[in-house]
């Protein structure tokens, strides 16, 4: 084989080695969510398909695949079909820069964190195009809510990321993790950590901020008109986004692939294990929050984003940089 085709083959294999585990863990995450919700509400959760019901989500996917894909007659056909694809593509291409361990990453680029921020901010297009192309009231309202909500919370996510970047002095994700070797940023930047998790809930349209798909007022929000596999793609993308935001939280605040304490039996375990465990813990928090909190009202959501998070993160950026500057701790 020529070197170019060899390189291409390796690249494609690398991509598959990220995408396939992500899609499988989406299926397991859906199962986990139903089990956790079941446990919180004193039910059993899925327990029929496969051992402990673990194959339930695969059965659900098969069911979705065999259903008829309905196209509303008054919709914009191209955009209607394109929107779920776009959402899923965006939730998968972000994995190109996520470092699972110090060597295991598809593309180690200089501006990794900005790339992730850009891709996660494009996510709103899938929702807004879906809502508009459906040409129906509830999806449209869902799309408007989603656009306003995601833009509002991106602002505070941006400031949280800036705070971390000030402490690191690099936009490279591997550098960000390696600077947390001795102390995870979740400890000195605890308020930012909490704000980031809450904003991630809003950014992925999860409860208690799932107003774009608020079933009590909007039927199913932006994907009301979707059926079969086009609905399935939205579903996949939502959960893949949850995993992505959890990985981002782990990279920014929980020290990526580093063990909690750098002592012998812990640091002998491979980094991928620690990464997955941390992502799992953050995902469990997502599900826990869903089972615990009631949904926010829309004005409460906007108030939290603009009047509490924005000023707080802005002040915290100033405080952090002043602290680092005064004590000469700024990275070069």
């Amino acid at each position: 084989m020529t070197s170019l085709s060899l390189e291409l083959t390796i690249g494609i294999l690398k991509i598959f080695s990220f995408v396939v585990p992500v899609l499988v863990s989406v299926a397991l995450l859906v199962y986990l969510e139903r089990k956790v919700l079941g446990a919180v509400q004193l039910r059993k959760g899925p327990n029929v398909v496969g051992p402990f019901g673990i194959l339930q989500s695969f059965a659900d996917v098969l069911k979705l695949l065999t259903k008829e894909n309905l196209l509303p007659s008054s919709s914009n056909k191209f955009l209607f079909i394109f929107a779920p694809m776009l959402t899923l593509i965006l939730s998968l291409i972000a994995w190109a820069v996520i470092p699972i361990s110090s060597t295991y990453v598809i593309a180690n680029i200089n501006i990794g964190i900005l790339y992730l921020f850009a891709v996660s901010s494009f996510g709103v297009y899938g929702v807004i195009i879906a809502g508009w192309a459906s040409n129906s009231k509830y999806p449209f309202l869902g799309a408007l809510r989603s656009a306003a909500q995601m833009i509002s919370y991106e602002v505070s996510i941006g400031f949280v990321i800036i705070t971390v970047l000030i402490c690191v002095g690099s936009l490279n994700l591997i550098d960000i993790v390696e600077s947390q070797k001795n102390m995870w940023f979740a400890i000195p930047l605890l308020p930012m950590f909490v704000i980031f998790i809450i904003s991630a809930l809003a950014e992925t349209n999860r409860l208690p901020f799932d107003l774009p798909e608020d079933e009590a007022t909007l039927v199913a929000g932006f994907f009301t008109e979707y059926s079969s596999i086009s609905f399935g793609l939205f579903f996949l993308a939502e959960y893949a986004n949850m995993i992505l935001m959890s990985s981002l939280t782990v990279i920014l605040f929980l020290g990526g692939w580093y063990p909690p304490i750098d002592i012998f039996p812990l640091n002998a375990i491979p980094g991928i294990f620690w990464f997955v465990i941390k992502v799992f813990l953050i995902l469990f928090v997502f599900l826990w929050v869903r089972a615990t909190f009631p949904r926010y009202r829309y004005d409460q959501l906007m108030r939290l984003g603009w009047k509490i998070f924005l000023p707080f993160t802005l002040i915290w950026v100033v405080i952090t940089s002043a602290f680092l500057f005064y004590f000469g701790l700024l990275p070069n």
Partner: protein
Amino acid sequence: MFLVGSFFLFAAFLITTCIFVIFSKNPVNSVLFLVLAFLNSTFLFILIGAEFVGIILAIVYIGAVAILFLFVVMMLDIQITTLMFNIKRYIPLALLFAGIILAEIIYLTVFKTSKDNLDTFIISKNNTEQIGDVLYTEYFIDFQLSGIVLLLAMIGAIVLTHVYRPTIKRQNIESQNSTTAEDRVKLVKIKSGEGIKDD
């Protein structure tokens, strides 16, 4: 070869999408083509090695500005025919701006920049650090001035839209939170056959 090929590919896409922005029948499609145009210019920036500028363009214009465009355009009920009728009035103005921008590009590429000047930019640091080095030192005043211009635009927009109307009902979060049960509910003991006196 690969670089040149991708440049022409993205440049061709950029020009095509820009043409579609102007000639789309539906304003929502125009905005979506505008997003594609921004995306292609991001690719062009990345091709010349300015990945920081490219990705910032993507974050600011695709991630925020175009979404707000889309947000507004989706809610407007625009009659396409009237828009197309009026379009001829703006051609002279458009030509004027196009001429100014073309002159700027010619000035910057042909007269201003020499090859030696370009070489000084190619140094070992990545371009994020290069921008950081000059932005707050050499171009400090320009940077602050552009910030003030943006602030003025923001204040202007708020002043134009934020009209206080006393008839509109608003949520007062503080009064909502400070409400206690005694303010809203009271326990009344009713004697049989008398009912409640409304007071």
